[in-house]
């Protein structure tokens, strides 16, 4: 009998707290596999800011530090500048990265900081109970946009992968999702590429993962995946927005 599939050994035995149908578990697993496959266990340093992102601080047998809401790119700047040989990963949600921490992520990109951002965009505040985020879709009902997100009061969703790609300090920016096995494989390839670029000392690498939040969206997991496939990725188109490595080749 041969093993064809197993839980990454870089995971601790901790029980994962994520809600049913949440994308975080899949993204955590893919990152765990990449750390293991590339023997980065002694080099990886996670920065986990507040939002559901922070739950993962107990799930990995690699070094990590919690950060305040929005501040992970600043903490990651300090960690990476002090230990440039390490694989520094800022793992952030959309309320965290696009709202509270917009300044920190933009300026990390402007400076061309050499860490990787895994940006989990589920178009809502998950941990605090389903409030509107800057990434919430037009018309989307949340607890703070109970009549649907309206342009008049809140403007439009923010497309971070495109914005970050437009900054010269960004080396690589791609948007992926987790709605099908094929797309999960593409996500793994994207994050792998980002990590490899970082280990080559390139500038900011940014992977946006469009991810379902059935609890925050008030949907069953299957319905959440359908809505993600039909609506969310039409606002957040998948694709590579910048890959200076490809251009250099």
């Amino acid at each position, binding site marked *: 009998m041969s093993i064809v599939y197993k839980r990454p050994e870089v995971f601790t035995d901790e029980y994962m707290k994520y809600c049913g149908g949440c994308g975080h578990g899949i993204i955590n697993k893919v990152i765990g596999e990449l750390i293991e496959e590339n023997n980065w266990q002694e080099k990886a340093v996670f920065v986990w800011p507040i939002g559901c992102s922070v739950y993962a601080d107990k799930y990995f047998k690699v*070094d990590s530090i919690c950060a305040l809401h929005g*501040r992970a790119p600043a*903490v990651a700047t300090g*960690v990476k500048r*002090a*230990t440039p040989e390490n694989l520094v990963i800022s793992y952030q949600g959309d309320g965290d990265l696009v709202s509270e921490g917009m*300044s920190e992520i933009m300026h990390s990109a402007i400076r061309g900081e050499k860490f990787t951002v895994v940006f989990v965009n589920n178009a809502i505040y998950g941990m605090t109970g389903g409030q509107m985020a800057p990434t919430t879709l037009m018309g989307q009902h949340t607890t703070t946009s109970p009549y649907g997100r309206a342009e008049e009061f809140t403007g439009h969703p923010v497309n971070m992968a495109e914005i970050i790609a437009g900054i010269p300090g960004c080396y690589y920016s791609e948007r992926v999702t987790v709605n099908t096995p094929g797309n999960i494989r593409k996500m793994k390839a994207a994050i792998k590429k980002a990590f490899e670029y970082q280990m080559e000392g390139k500038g900011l690498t940014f992977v946006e993962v469009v991810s379902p939040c059935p609890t925050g969206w008030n949907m069953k997991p299957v319905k959440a995946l359908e809505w993600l496939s039909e609506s969310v990725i039409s606002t957040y188109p998948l694709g590579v927005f910048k890959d200076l490595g490809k251009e250099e080749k």
Partner: protein
Amino acid sequence: MGEKVFMQGNEAFAESAIRSGCKFFFGYPITPSSEMPEYYAKRAPEEGLTFIQAETEVAAFNMIAGVAATGKRGMTATSGPGFSLGCEAMSYMSAASLPSVVVDVMRPGPADGEILGSQGDYFQLTKGGGHGDYRTIVLAPYSVQEYADFAPLAFELAEKYLNPVVVASDGTLAKMMENVVLPERSAGPERQPWAVDGAKGREHNDITTCGDGPEQWEAFNLRLQAKYQNIRDNEQRWEEYQTEDADVIIVAFGVYSRVAMAAMKMAREKGLKVGLIRPITLWPFPVKAFENLENKDFFVTELNSGQMVEDVKLAVKDKDRVEFYGRLGGMIPTPVELFNKLCELYMK
């Protein structure tokens, strides 16, 4: 002994920090602290330093947290409005037990305020400033020499207790020039066993600032409180002059204590029994300095509307024997002004 030079306060601190192995400086320009980022930026290439002009003080303080998390020495310097922005990170670094050093070059607030010397941040620095039950060690130098000496001391205390340390200077000390003996060079600490610098040759380290239920979080908080009590027991620092026979003891801190010293000397020349206590650690406040001082009056003077005076009242046996005089807005009393005030209060 190190090199003796004639140097400005802020630059002397920055040079002393560099010699103490602090290779990382992140900061945002604000008067009267800006000579420090400028000095680091200038010295970066020859000393192999990392200097970033941060986008905000919020970012600068969190960058320092990141460096401290790897076990290396990093610092920032700012003034009141910037320190207010950094208070979120002061709370965070305290909970995370990160050994960072922050200089607050005090200027008169509130709000934008003025840019000369002040002591108006005393409450903010010693009572928290950020959220939650935390404390940071606060050192208040009175001369350019002591300012420079406090760079290595601040890092040593930060690393000994795994806690942020604030150096509270002000616009006057920042800008004045004096002779100063700079410290010997040191490389800074070895690899720290608790740091998040890659899990090489050890189990992984997690620095967590997130609670996991009230029982766990109370236990976490009690460990912090035990640390703070240890600091209170062991790190109270002060200087005192002629307190033994004194009828009145002036209490003043920072560079302003030099005005108080001049007023004390004037009083002694006139045969009045006046002494001086100069708190060096503002937190922990040196309550031990006030033990065994029976039947004395205390004249507290500060460049604020009365902040440290509250701690003096808690430290003395009879708070009715504590008087206060302060100036605001960047105004500094002359020795004669202080002496006259002293006479007015006690020579009735």
